[in-house]
């Protein structure tokens, strides 16, 4: 996702946040449209991760070689929407989502503009981003490797395998953002495989750790804005989010994980998005 966004760089800080907020709202409407497609979509996780993706793509717009990898690839609808409203994807993906001949599959692949790696088999996006960060480090180049993972995804050993490697390799330009919406396919993370002391876990691996509101666009953009080319500890951002965020009818509900709705309901839900 290396395409450069041009508009926000010319705006003041507040104006940038207004642009990003507008993008997030529009992206949420697109995600609802995809839930109303013949296939339905992973609605809850797409909505919870949207503000993180909008902020991360804005960070990549700095043009310093930052790469954003959505590791929780089942939130593909959220990624496609975020790419479109950020100006990276040239066409509206919603009318094409899940259709034959369309690259907008239920989990993203590199045929989608702005997507470099195939994700959705959980865990793999984290080392992809770490490898990218390692390349920047080897070349003495700026830019981050940002992986956006789900909290349920942290059950995959590959995530922690990569954390061990990233810390050992002193990849301070590697950032792992956890979309902590508390849900997973069959229920709640806390009921299936809880994550006690998650911040402490990352710290024990040798990460810098920040806990934040995953829907605070200004806070997220500030967190990701830094130049970490001289940092030696990877950064974990534990972002508290709400599954289904922005659509009151499904906010916080585990059942929002995968949703298929009709056009009438989609219009109701889109009108409720602020």
């Amino acid at each position, binding site marked *: 996702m290396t395409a450069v966004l041009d508009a926000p760089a010319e705006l003041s800080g507040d104006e940038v946040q207004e642009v990003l907020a507008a993008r997030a709202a529009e992206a949420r409407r697109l995600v609802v449209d995809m839930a109303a497609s013949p296939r339905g979509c992973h609605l809850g996780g797409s909505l919870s991760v949207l503000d993180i993706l909008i902020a991360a793509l804005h960070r990549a717009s700095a043009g310093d070689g930052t790469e954003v990898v959505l590791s929780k690839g089942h939130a593909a609808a959220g990624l496609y929407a975020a790419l479109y409203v950020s100006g990276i994807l040239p066409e509206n993906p919603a009318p094409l989502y899940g259709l034959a001949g369309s690259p907008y599959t239920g989990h993203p692949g590199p045929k989608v503009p702005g997507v470099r790696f195939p994700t959705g088999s959980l865990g793999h996006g984290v080392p992809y981003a770490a*490898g990218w960060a390692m390349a920047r480090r*080897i070349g003495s180049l700026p830019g981050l490797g940002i992986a956006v993972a789900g909290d349920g995804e942290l059950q995959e050993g590959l995530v922690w395998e*990569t954390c061990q490697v990233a810390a050992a390799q002193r990849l301070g330009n590697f950032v792992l953002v956890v979309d902590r919406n508390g849900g997973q396919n069959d229920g709640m993370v806390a009921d299936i495989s809880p994550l006690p002391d998650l911040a402490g876990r990352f710290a024990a691996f040798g990460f810098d750790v920040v806990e934040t509101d995953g829907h605070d666009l200004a806070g997220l953009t500030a967190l990701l804005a830094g130049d970490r080319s001289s940092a030696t500890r990877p950064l974990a951002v534990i972002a508290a989010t709400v599954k289904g965020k922005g659509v009151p009818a499904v906010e916080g509900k585990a059942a929002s994980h995968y949703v298929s709705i009709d056009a009438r309901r989609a219009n109701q839900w889109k009108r409720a998005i602020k």
Partner: protein
Amino acid sequence: MTLSGRDAYRDELALLGAEDPALLCLEADLGGKGHAFQLAHPERFFNLGIAEGAMVDMAAGLASAGYKPFVSTFAPFAALRAAESLKLTLGYLAAGVTVVAPYAGVSGAWFGTTHHTLEDLAVLRSVPGVTIAAPYGEAEMRAVIREAVRSGKPHYIRTGRNAAYESLDTAAAEGPYEGELPLVNWEFRAGSEDVCLVSVGEEGTRLAMEARLAAPGTAHAHLVYLDHEHLTQAAAELAAHHRRFVVVEEHRAQGGVAEALALLLPRCEVTAASANRSWPSQGGDHAEVMAAVGLDLPAVLAAVDRAGDQALAGAA
């Protein structure tokens, strides 16, 4: 003195690394002391620890950024533990990553079943777009490594443990070989009605040459590239010379080269001298463990005899 396959890989990559700053060498804590690439280019050598899946995926990230990563770990861990990463990185992404996998087959010998892999060809051959090579001898390994760097295509390169074999008489054996190796290396040609041994990998080739000495008149064709695309072309060349083949491979028959050639050569008779479906669970050296899975010289000769008998029966 000739080098083993894995030592030849390390040495050749170190040589190439002097010319190409994009080459990186990644190991998962099984590279050992005195790794040639580490000694020559320490700033581009990375022991990522015991993390095979992360290593292959990170190699995808590195390749995406313009580097040419070579990753290496024992074959059972590369082909099976990291299988999904190989599918995505080598196959779907077609990333310019080369996986070098020593300890293939039962070359792990007395280390036991966990360190054997008689399934790696079956796994990798089913992933589209991956060039698969099993070189025999130092010169062939060097040629394969050079080709992997030159082509930039994803490679899986299978080799044994420490055994060192004199290279066959090929262009590669005579010095640095800049082109792709011959599809079929005819170690010995015979009449078209004679049985032709088709050797795969280090031990398959050793056994085939021993069998040819014990059964003079048997032809021997050695194959180094084992993926579907290369085998399809090699099969055409094999069929132009012979109709009966015995494939010798340190792999199970299921998913192996014999099975592939049987599909590619429906008008020929293809049989296999390969590992049976047992799980070797006792110690011994490499040859002894191979014998325990039914793969030794008597087994190869018996397969040649059966193929010859079929030829006689057909003639009668």
